[in-house]
């Protein structure tokens, strides 16, 4: 009996670590190969302060959490600039270093001998020693960890994490500070791991480096991935599987190292097969298991203009003015002393041959590329050099040529995530003002459905975005852009690569946005579309604006036609 309760305790402890890693890996798409090391740092912090400094039990948990949170946040310092494979390498190296130190820094860790005699926690005067006595405590903490993990993962905060996972650039382009979310999720993940590690140290009363190896890190990753990323129920299933299988393998009655090898063989093989045949894991992200799914229905009273109208009185003058922008790539001038101005409530088009620098202009205006000279002002306010997400908050947002939806999220979530100033995006209100968060969530949900109704896709709200046709994806991208509530909308080829039937619809929506008071600028190759939709056009060639006027006037200019179609001798 005691033995099976011990197994259960182990499952619970590992599932807490799983929650910690799933927040990073499953929700935010950030790999950590150092969770074993993090687990170790917390365990040593709790063990040494409890045994050598006589710190009492609950306080040791706080100390462990402080250490793991700080370390997780610090290790990610470079991770804030880099991602993907850099993060794998960085955490891998960190894992090896910490493990090495645990073995060799014997003055502190006692090396391979390990730290023994860690005091047992005493609750209400009696010390916990057996698995039975520990179970209520561990179960309670596990429940808490899952509750916190679930609250974070399934909230507006978690929605931004998933956006970050699916597309980092697009997350910036909807006005979210990627940096803040990365630091926060690493710190939270570290804190949750810290809790598990302190409990572990007190529970075992003995720790040595061999519990905190690279293998442990790999197993935690495998546990989360096989169980199902971005689904905490999956993490629990994974923990049961990972602790349960070795216990079953005991019946082989082979030597311990052979048993371990068989276990590794099975888990390694499963990992390869799952990545090939079921990358979403046992309990997938959009599984009905383990989460409530309310049916998605559109509000009955949907009219387009109501939701897209700009709020507040419009100031005078052009909405956006850029002067003297410049950008070089090597020897190529992608933007050269470039100036333009966008009239409020009008549609302006940027046309010109391929490579003229049109998308570069968008990148410069929205801060995705720093301009080398010049200034940009939005409603008279200087926005030069703002980070992309700050430019969006200031009211200047853009779409991408290649759409860049958050492909693994639902259509509704794609739009909801872009709504600014959601209280549930901040951890304080998320845990302290749940009523306010829930209310805002209901309103934002309705609001997002209205944007979707405006583009005519409310009926697809519950579908996963990646499953939509390209034309529909462009419409969702437009709804997402509107949801940022930006006044100036930069559309990068809104109608290209789309069936003709969609083109007319998209152009009509763009006109409606302008009529509602939004300022639109678009880059488009379809000249017919430009003539239909634009009030004013700039013609670009080789990083410069060479002509401007009504679209009709520009089309009629034979010289520009030559540049555009390349029929001249250039």
């Amino acid at each position, binding site marked *: 009996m005691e033995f099976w309760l011990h197994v259960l305790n182990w499952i619970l402890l590992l599932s807490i670590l799983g929650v910690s890693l799933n927040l990073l890996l499953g929700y935010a798409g950030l790999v950590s190969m150092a969770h074993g090391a993090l687990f170790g740092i917390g365990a040593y912090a709790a063990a040494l302060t409890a045994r050598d400094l006589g710190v009492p039990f609950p306080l040791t948990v706080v100390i462990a959490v402080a250490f793991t949170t700080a370390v997780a946040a610090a290790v990610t310092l*470079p991770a804030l600039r*880099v991602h993907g494979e*850099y993060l794998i390498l960085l955490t891998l*190296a960190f894992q090896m*270093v910490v493990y090495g130190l645990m073995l060799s820094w014997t003055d502190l860790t006692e090396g391979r001998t390990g730290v023994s005699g860690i005091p047992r926690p005493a609750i209400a005067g009696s010390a916990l020693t057996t698995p039975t006595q520990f179970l209520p405590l561990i179960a309670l903490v596990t429940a808490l960890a899952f509750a916190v993990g679930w609250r974070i993962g399934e909230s507006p905060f978690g929605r931004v994490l998933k956006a970050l996972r699916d597309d980092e650039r697009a997350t910036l382009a909807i006005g979210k500070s990627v940096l803040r979310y990365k630091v926060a999720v690493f710190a939270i993940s570290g804190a949750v791991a810290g809790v598990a590690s302190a409990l572990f140290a007190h529970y075992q009363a003995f720790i040595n480096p061999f519990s905190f190896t690279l293998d442990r890190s790999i197993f935690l*990753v495998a546990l989360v991935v096989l169980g199902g990323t971005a689904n905490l129920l999956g993490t629990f299933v994974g923990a049961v599987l990972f602790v349960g299988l070795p216990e079953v393998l005991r019946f082989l009655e082979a030597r311990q190292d052979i048993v371990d090898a068989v276990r*590794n063989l099975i888990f390694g093989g499963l*990992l*390869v097969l799952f990545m090939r045949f079921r990358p979403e894991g046992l309990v997938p992200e959009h599984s009905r298991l383990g989460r409530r799914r309310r049916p998605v229905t559109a509000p009955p009273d949907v009219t387009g203009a109501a939701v897209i109208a700009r709020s507040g009185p419009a100031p005078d003058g052009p909405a956006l003015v850029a002067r003297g922008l410049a950008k070089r790539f090597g020897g190529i001038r992608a933007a050269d002393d470039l100036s333009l101005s966008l009239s409020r409530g009008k549609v302006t088009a940027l046309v010109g041959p391929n490579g003229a620098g049109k998308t570069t202009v968008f990148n410069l205006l929205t801060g995705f590329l720093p301009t080398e000279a010049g200034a940009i002002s939005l409603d008279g306010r200087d926005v030069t050099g703002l980070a992309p997400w700050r430019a969006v908050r200031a009211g200047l947002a853009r779409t991408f040529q290649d759409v860049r939806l958050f492909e693994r999220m639902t259509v509704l979530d794609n739009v909801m995530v872009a709504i600014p100033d959601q209280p549930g995006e901040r951890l304080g209100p998320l845990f302290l003002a749940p009523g306010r968060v829930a209310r805002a969530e209901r309103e934002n949900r309705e609001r997002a459905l209205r944007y979707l109704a405006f583009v005519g896709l409310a009926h697809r709200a519950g579908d996963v975005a990646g499953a939509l046709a390209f034309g529909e994806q462009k419409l969702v991208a437009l709804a997402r852009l509107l949801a940022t509530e930006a006044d100036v909308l930069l559309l990068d080829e809104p109608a290209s690569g789309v069936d003709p039937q969609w083109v007319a619809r998209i152009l009509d929506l763009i006109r409606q946005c302008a009529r509602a008071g939004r300022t639109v600028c678009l880059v488009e190759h379809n000249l017919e579309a430009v003539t239909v939709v634009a009030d004013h056009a700039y013609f670009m060639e080789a990083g410069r604006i060479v002509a401007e006027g009504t679209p009709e006037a520009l089309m009629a200019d034979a010289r520009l036609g030559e540049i555009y179609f390349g029929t001249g001798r250039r």
Partner: protein
Amino acid sequence: MDADLGLAAQLAANGLIAGSLYALLGVSWGMIFATTRIFHFAHALTLAVATYAAVVVVDTARLGLPLGFVTAAAAGCLFGLLVEIAVYRPLRRANATQLNVFLASLGFLIAGESVLLIVFGPEARTLPGFPLEGIALGPVAFTTIEALWAAASWALVLALLAWLRLTRWGRAIRAVASNPELAQCVGVDPPRVFVLVFAVGSALAGIGGALIALRDTASPFMGVQPVLAAFIAVFLGGIGSIPGAIVGGVVLGLAENMGGLLLPGHWQGVIAFVVLFLVLVFRPSGLLGAAAR
């Protein structure tokens, strides 16, 4: 003071010796990574499998060390091909994300290490037969094995560099590494190039593994530590740059060993990490990488 200088010279020599091996492993992994963009963690398994093949030839069948090295290269080459064709290619066809390919690589590594352990047992094996002698050059002492490490690594690295620059296939590899779509347009077939880099890179890893087993030992888990050094070398130097991987390997070897002048021995690993950390923070594109990624 003289003793300090002597120590510094010795540590520098140790650093260069370790660095040449890191450079060899760095280019072998870096070439695969730059071309295929796969974070090929199972390279560690290739190294171990090839070394065990050499151990069987040299220690069990007694066929002599030269044949052992040939076997290591051949086994590495074949094993690398197997991984590419049996594991990575189906994943690419299924449009797996880069992260999922990495996870599959990780799974393949731990599964493969387990097979090695079940077949060969956990005991360390050796690759005997190389005449081990000490060599003293002024204040610096090293062994004949270490001299072989450095000589063989540099010979292979330089041969690889020449091959990449001078041959048609080498140019195809560099083309795919710098721009796969464009390479396709000029008639280079990326899948064939992928097979090629896995074959060549894995053969080099096999030889690297055999070199390691000459001085140290062979074990199922022997590959992880050296391959991690290779990863670091590649990122230090800059992804996609073969000379970068060489420089990265040497810098890493020197930093690890010269650090012993300032810090106690068990901090050796920390120095490598700090160097990596600083480079990633201040120069994410690597020492020799292009300024913008």
